[in-house]
């Protein structure tokens, strides 16, 4: 146990170094995609924890990301706090909101919870239009500034975003992985598969669920803060229903129960539009066809992937066994 934990830390450090090295050799588009990838990884981690472990479904994590995004921006713009602090504030405030939501959610089962969180995803972001401090539909600017001079003059903005996002993602995934392999993760899995047995073993089901919801929300909040940083802007329309769906999809592609798979899920999410565009470009055709072909291909890839690998990629299983 002890050994595997230190190995895990080591693995994360190696990944970090590799990522940073990689960011220096690939082109800027890839660097930007790397930042998006990190956002997705964090968002998917929040779903893996919530659904894969505690067994609660959420179709509304986009809304939680919105809370994180707005919190980070407000903190950064009004209190002039540094990026790490604004991210921390995003985590804490979203976790706080999540704990309230989780309290309500703990009473709800499967599709009822799905419906409620879905309504949240539709309802919450548009609330931003009601409060002028939130900047309405055109949103609030979120400018984390240019990279420090010390990094050199050819250090681009996107590389800066990528470094911040990748670091945040690595830290949070490391923490999440620790939690998931700790007794908390174990208790959630127990609670998910046999709630009565779990409570007879001394687990307070309600509290456990709320805790999971809270932590998951905090993680989603961070993802939201990261997302708005890459956008330079926070606006309600950055958190559409399709975002909530996308991260759930990423989690399912990852097999839901496994963080290592989350990276693959995120990769797929980032890569699919590119692949679809590429394929659609090859096929060409009339305008109404070419406009819809990417969406068609994306959906098709999704369906086929879930049908072929309903429990996530086999590769991820290997990873999870090794980390145990």
């Amino acid at each position, binding site marked *: 146990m002890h050994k595997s934990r230190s190995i895990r830390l080591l693995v994360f450090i190696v990944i970090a170094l590799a990522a940073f090295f990689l960011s220096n050799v690939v082109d800027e588009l890839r660097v930007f995609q790397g930042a998006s990838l990190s956002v997705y990884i964090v968002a998917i981690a929040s779903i893996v924890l919530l*659904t*894969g472990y505690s*067994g609660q*479904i959420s*179709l509304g994590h986009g809304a939680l990301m919105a809370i994180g995004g707005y919190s980070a921006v407000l903190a950064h713009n009004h209190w002039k706090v540094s990026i790490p602090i604004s991210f921390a504030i995003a985590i804490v405030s979203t976790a706080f909101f999540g704990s309230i939501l989780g309290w*309500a959610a703990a*009473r*709800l*089962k*499967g*599709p*009822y919870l*799905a*419906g*409620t969180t*879905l*309504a*949240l995803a*539709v*309802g*919450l972001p*548009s*609330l931003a*239009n*009601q409060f002028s401090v939130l900047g309405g539909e055109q949103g609030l600017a979120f400018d984390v500034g240019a990279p420090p001079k010390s990094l050199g003059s050819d250090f681009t903005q996107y590389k800066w975003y990528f470094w911040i996002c990748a670091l945040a993602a690595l830290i949070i995934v490391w923490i999440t992985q620790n939690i998931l392999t700790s007794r908390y993760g174990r208790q959630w899995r127990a609670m*998910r598969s046999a*709630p*009565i047995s779990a409570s007879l073993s001394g687990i307070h089901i309600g509290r456990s669920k709320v805790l999971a919801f809270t932590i998951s929300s905090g993680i989603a909040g961070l993802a939201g803060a990261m997302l708005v940083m890459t956008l330079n802007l926070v606006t309600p329309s950055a958190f559409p*229903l399709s975002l909530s*769906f996308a991260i*759930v*999809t990423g*989690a*399912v*592609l990852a*097999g*839901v*129960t496994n963080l290592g798979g989350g990276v693959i899920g995120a990769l797929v999410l980032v890569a699919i539009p590119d692949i679809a565009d590429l394929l659609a470009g090859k096929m060409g055709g009339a305008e*109404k*066809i070419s*406009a*819809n*072909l990417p*969406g*068609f291909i*994306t*959906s*098709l890839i*999704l*369906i086929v992937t*879930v*049908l072929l690998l*309903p*429990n*996530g990629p086999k590769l991820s299983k290997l990873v999870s066994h090794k980390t145990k």
Partner: protein
Amino acid sequence: MRLFSTLLIGLSSGAIYSLMALALVLVWRSTRVVNFAQAGQAIASTYIGYLVISRTDNYWLALPVALVAGALIGALVDVALIRTLNKRVKSGPAAEMAPVIVTLGLLGLIRSTVGMIWGGDLKAYKAPVTNHGFTFGTTTIPFSPYNLLIVITAVIVMAVFSIIFQKTNLGLSLRAAAFQPEIARLAGVRVDLVRTIGWAFAGGAGAVAGVLVTPSNSLSPNSLDLLLVLGFVGAVIGGLESLLGAAIGGVVLGIGLAFILEYVSTSLAFPSAFIVLILVLLIKPSGILGKKGGRGA
């Protein structure tokens, strides 16, 4: 008067949510899948209905054609996708989530297919009966023959399917197949067939919803998206297990929204769906007509 007209506005929009909610509950009850593709299936059937209307200018021909098309699409979805999915995922968190993703994917697939065939532009056709509100003396109330048609249809769909579910052998088979397919098989239920019938029913109901709603809404590949969300919320409010619940849930949502829009703020449309839902579920976590779970141990 203000109260009354708000109520009527709520009722007329609620009836529409009810129709979509009914379609969702139909699939849920016969297959235990929350079918996000419902909006897509309904859109595809509605386009087919539109095709009929634009060729023949006959709404009453379009409705049954769309209904049949919707049923066929529903059946096709089951046979082509859901069966395979059920074979491949049996248990675990993936089993709960995979259908969500597959039906979402299907929604995208159908939308883009529709887009490829008919383009993204708005289409419209007229309601079969006037949507000019009933007039008493000089006052016109916000409830029209067209609203009445929708309410009546929702009631008929609900009644017909309630009877099918509760009173007929097919209904019993549907429920058995939905809950425990393997045990249902051992009791002689032709599970595959019965589930496909369930999908066809829901597809037909969704098509009717689509064809009915469109005159007040216009038609585009995305035009039923909002209705899907509100229908789902209505279904959850009603308690997913009951068709009557779906109908009530849709109307409760419609009236709740109408009141919030009228008395609180016209710009709170989306948050209020969430507010209405949360209010209902905090009081009854399994919806208005939902059942409580049985014994655990």
